[in-house]
C-alpha cells in the first residue's frame, strides 16, 4: 500500500528526481535538435530508416517497428498483423465505442479503405472497449456500414504494445512492418493528411501483380 516518506528522506530523494526530470525533458527533444547523430534502425528483413527516408517523402517517417499481435474479430476469426502486412500497408486504428472522435473518424477510414483497397491497403480497427462494453461494438459497426475487420482488444494487449494512452490513435504501417505515420486524436482534416501519407507509401511500393492481389 501507500508509503509516506518523511520530509528529510524526501529532500534526499529530491535531487535524483530533479535530475531525472531534466533528463526526461532532454529525452523528449528530437536528437537532431541536440545535434546528435541518428543511427540506423534494426537490420534483418525490416526496412531501415535510411531506406524509408531515401524515398524522399517528408510525409513519412520511420517510427520504429510495429509490434506483431494476434486478435480476434467480432466473428471470432483470428487476424495476425504480419499476415495482413503481406497484402500491403496497414492502417491500424485504436478506437472505442464511447469515444466520439473515434466514431467520427471510422466512416472516414471506411471511405479511405474503399478507395485504396485494390491497391493493397488494409484497415484494422482495434476496439479497446473492455469486454463489459463489447455488445455495443457490432451495432455501431453495422450502423456505419464498416466493412474492414473490427478487432477486439478488451484486455488491451495490443493497446499496451502500441502504448495507447488515448483514442483514437492511428498508425500507418509499411508492408515491411515499420510504423511510418502516427495520428493521435481526430479532427476534421486529419483524414486528408492520412490519405496523402497512404498515397506516398503506396507510390514507393512496387505495383501489385494480379497474383498478389488474389492472395
Amino acid at each position: 500500500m501507500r508509503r509516506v516518506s518523511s520530509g528529510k528522506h524526501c529532500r534526499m530523494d529530491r535531487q535524483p528526481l530533479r535530475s531525472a526530470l531534466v533528463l526526461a525533458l532532454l529525452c523528449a527533444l528530437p536528437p537532431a535538435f541536440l545535434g546528435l547523430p541518428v543511427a540506423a534502425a534494426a537490420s534483418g528483413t525490416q526496412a531501415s530508416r535510411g531506406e524509408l527516408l531515401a524515398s524522399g517523402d517528408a510525409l513519412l517517417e520511420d517510427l520504429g517497428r510495429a509490434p506483431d499481435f494476434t486478435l480476434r474479430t467480432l466473428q471470432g476469426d483470428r487476424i495476425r498483423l504480419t499476415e495482413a502486412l503481406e497484402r500491403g500497408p496497414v492502417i491500424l486504428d485504436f478506437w472505442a465505442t464511447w469515444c466520439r472522435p473515434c466514431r467520427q473518424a471510422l466512416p472516414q477510414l471506411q471511405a479511405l479503405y474503399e478507395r485504396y483497397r485494390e491497391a493493397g491497403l488494409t484497415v484494422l480497427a482495434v476496439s479497446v472497449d473492455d469486454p463489459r462494453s463489447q455488445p455495443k461494438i457490432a451495432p455501431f459497426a453495422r450502423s456505419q456500414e464498416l466493412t474492414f475487420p473490427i478487432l477486439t482488444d478488451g484486455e488491451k494487449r495490443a493497446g499496451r504494445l502500441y502504448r495507447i494512452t488515448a483514442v483514437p490513435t492511428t498508425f500507418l504501417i509499411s508492408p515491411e512492418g515499420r510504423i511510418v505515420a502516427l495520428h493521435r486524436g481526430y479532427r476534421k482534416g486529419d483524414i486528408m493528411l492520412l490519405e496523402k501519407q497512404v498515397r506516398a507509401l503506396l507510390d514507393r511500393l512496387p505495383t501489385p501483380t494480379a497474383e498478389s492481389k488474389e492472395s
Partner: protein
Amino acid sequence: VTVRHGPLLLLLLFVFLATGTAAQELSFGEGGWLQVSNLLEFQAGRDPTLDSDELTRQFDQFILDYLQGDLRLGLRAEFYRDSIQPEFGDADYDQITQKYAEWSRPDLRIRVGNGYAILGRGLLFRAFELPGVVRDAIFPRARYAESRDLEGVIIEGRRGPLQLLALSGRPVENPDAPYGADEVLPRRDGTVSGGRLGLQLERGIVVGASYLRADGIVEPGTEDLSGVDLSLRLDPLLAALGAQGAGLSFYGEYAGRRWQPFTDGLSTRDGRPHALYTATTLAYSSWGLSFETKRYHQFDLRINDPPTLVPEISYHLLNRMTHFLLTSDEQGAQLSLQGRLPRGWTLDLEWATARNRLLRNGRYELPKDYRLLYLSLESSPMADLQLSLFGAIGKDKFEGITHHHALGLQAQQVVRDGWALVGEFEFQQAERRIATTLINEKQRYDEIFTTLGISLAGHGTLAFQAEFSNDPAEKDDPLTFDVVEDDPRAWYGGVLDLQLSDRHRVTLFAGDRRGGTACTSGTCYEVPDFSGVELRLTSRY
C-alpha cells in the same frame, strides 16, 4: 513491488536518454528491441485543499519494455514530487510500480508479475488500468496512475473447443495510490486464485464456468466465488426465419458468493449475494441495437467490476453528470440503438435505467431511480463540415437530481489545407432536491460549456473553453477556502495540444479547471478543482 531506489531509476532514464539520442530504436541481438515511453506532468497553481498559491507538482511515469519474439519483459516506474510542506501530509515517492514477464503465442499467454485479466464480463474479477489517466488523491495530495493489477501469475489459452484462463495472485492498486484515492471501495487485501473454463459446443455456442477462492475481504478467512456464462450467436436462426444478413447474439452470466448451483439455482432473492448480467445484440441492414440488463446484490467484491450499463457520454456536461454503479444493490437496463438516416445523418439513441435500494433496519428499501434518455445526430452536410447535435433528459435520485435536461451542438469546419475550426456549445438545466430532517428544498441551476478552437492536421490544436454554473452546491469556490462566495461560478481555460514530432506530444493547459466527476473507458472518478498551469509531455520510442 515497491522499490524505493532513485539511483536505479536514474540509470534507467540514462538508458532512455541513450535510446532517444543515439538510436531511434535500441535493438538487441536477433529480433529483440526496447520500447520506451514516458509521461511527464508538471502543475503550478492553486489547490483547493491547501491555503497556498504556490503549489508545484511533478509526476512522471516511465515505461520500459523489451520485446523479443514471443517474449516481453517490462517495468513501470513512477515519480511524484510537490511543494506541499510535510506537515500537510508529504506524499512524495519514486517507485517501480510494475514489473512483468510475458510469453505469448496466438493460443497461449503466460504472464508473471503485474498483469490484467477479466473473468467473463467482470462480475467476479477484473484487473485493469486506465492508460493515460493521472488521478489525484485528496489527502494527502498526490498524483498517481490509475491501475488495479493482479500481482501473480496469469495463464490464458485455447485448444480446440476449450478456453482456459487461470490466475493466482494479489489484487493491488497502484502502490502509490494514497489512502482515500479509491474512495468507495479499495481493493481487497490477501490473494485470489481460480479461473474460467470455457467450452465451445458448436460454432457460436460457448458455455463457461468460473471459480475463485479469495481471502481478506471483510470477514476473516477465505470465501468461494463462482459463476456460469453462456454465449450464443443466433445468426443461423434469423437466416432460417428469412432475415438473411441479420446478426443476433446473446450473452448471459450469473455469479454468486458461496453459491451452491444445484440448490440455489440462479436465485436473485434478497439476502443471497449474486450478480446477473445479460446482453442481446441485433444488427440488421444499417441498424444495430443492443439491450443489456443487470441485477447486482451484495456483490461489492473489491476485485470485480461488472458492467455499469450507464452510458458514457463524451460531451462534457453529460460526462460529469453520470451515475456511479453500486454493486451493493442495483438493477437496471440499457438500450442502445444506432443507425443511418436519410441524407447521411447517423443516429445514436441511448436509454438507461437503474434502481438502487438502501439497507435500512436489515431490509433493502428506499428505492432511488436513475434514468437517462440520450439522442445524438451526426452528419457531414457539406464535405468540409462535420455537425453533431445532442439532447438528453434524465434523473439520478441517488445523487438528489430529480430532473435534468441538456442539449448541445458541435461543429468542425475545414477552412484550408488541414486547418479546421472547432466550436462546441452545451447547455444543461437541472433540479436537485435536498431533503433532511431540517431542510426540504429544491434547487434549480443552469450550466453552460463552450469551446472554440483551431486545429492543424498532424500538428495540434489551440482551444479556449469557458464553463458557467449557478449550481448552489458549487457557488463557494473551493480554491478560496477562507472566502464564502455566493455568485455564479465561471471557469476559463485554454489548451494548446502540440505534436512536437511523431514521438513527442505536449499539452499545455492554463486557467481554471472545474472539479467533479470524469469518466474514461467505462470507469468514473473524481477530479478536484485546479487553477494554474499544467504541462503534459508524452514521449514514445
